[in-house]
């Protein structure tokens, strides 16, 4: 079956959805992504949906699920590039994807994730400094 490729970029994963997905493809993506987050220890997941002409409640639920599972695995999901018509339709449908972060494009999405990575790294350095002191 056709699968959606997942690219690793630094500590983030990038998924570009370019085809009109049928439901099994969406389910497969959810599974593949969960596995990849665990394997790579990725801290961020970018899902680029700028090519998608529609997002119905099934795909909406997939995005929600991915965000929830990623959060449990300590990765942040950012959905990027949603088209205006798609956004208006989702709101009308009653789906607001409350648990999902959004950004205008991949670049902005990366900025969001980089900011989070910077926070995580700061914490690591502080802990390292403390270890040094206790070692003295």
């Amino acid at each position, binding site marked *: 079956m056709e699968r959606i490729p997942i690219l690793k970029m630094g500590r983030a994963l990038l998924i570009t959805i370019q085809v009109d997905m049928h439901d099994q493809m969406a389910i497969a993506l959810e599974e593949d992504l969960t596995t990849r987050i665990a394997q790579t220890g990725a801290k961020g997941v970018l899902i680029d949906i700028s090519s998608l002409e529609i997002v119905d409640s099934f795909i909406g639920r997939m995005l929600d699920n991915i965000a929830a599972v990623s959060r449990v695995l300590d990765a942040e999901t950012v959905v990027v590039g949603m088209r205006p018509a798609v*956004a*208006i339709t989702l*709101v009308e449908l009653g789906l*607001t994807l409350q648990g999902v972060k*959004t950004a*205008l*494009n991949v670049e902005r999405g990366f900025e969001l994730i980089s900011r989070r990575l910077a926070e995580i790294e700061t914490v690591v350095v502080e802990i390292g400094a403390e270890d040094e002191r206790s070692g003295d």
Partner: protein
Amino acid sequence: MAQADIGQTIAKRRAEILKDWGHQLRDGGALSSGRLKEAELDTQVREFLDLFVQAVSTNEADTARKALRQNVAEVSRARAIQGFTPTETATFIFSLKQPLFDALTQEFGKDSAALIQGLLAVTEILDGLGLHSMETFQKSREEVIIRQQKEIAELSTPVVKLWDGILALPLIGTLDSERTQVVMENLLQSIVEHGADYAIIDITGVPTVDTLVAQHLLKTVAAARLMGADCIISGIRPQIAQTMVHLGVELNVVSKANLADALGAALRATGRTVATIKSASGGSALSKA
């Protein structure tokens, strides 16, 4: 009497009919508004009469009649766009009746059967053309109205860039549900085009907001968030705030008192600030600190 006889009669008395018709039109005020020049009217009158003669006399009456209807349509469309009233437009056709009746009476005065036949034939054709004229007029006016509505809709939805990544949509006038929808689609499209992080919807110029419009505003804010942009609503009038609370519409979004405050908030949120430059004593405010 055959139609060809009518044609011949008109052709024979062309000059006289044209003169009479011209008088009728002028008396009817065709030129008084100044929208139409005398030379233009003369051309229209002559073209129409010649086509009319062809339509009643040639073998290829169908083609000629089509050309005649086409001519009537063009004249009526032009008048609709120039702002003529329906009566003024219809008068162009109907004022030809009298001159034609006069011509036929003079030609067939003694043969009353032929005269009646001729009058009926002429009336039928002219009435048909009159209706066609009205229809074209009406259609053209509708086209004008639709075009103007579009122009107004475009004029009334200017999305302006206030700063890099900060857009503003100053709304003015009453918002009905349809206009709100157009405005909102425009805003969301502009967010994409400008790559804007913040969109300020300023409703200072909006006198009232009903439940439906309030819901549209909220939906727009939600849609913008899905796209990755934040909205700030500014300039909510006290009455509108009250109405919304009474209607039970909870404006669960960031709102600021005015556009300036909203811009300030958006600048701060994007890591910028507006500062007053303290000029050195005597220094010009425009010189660089």
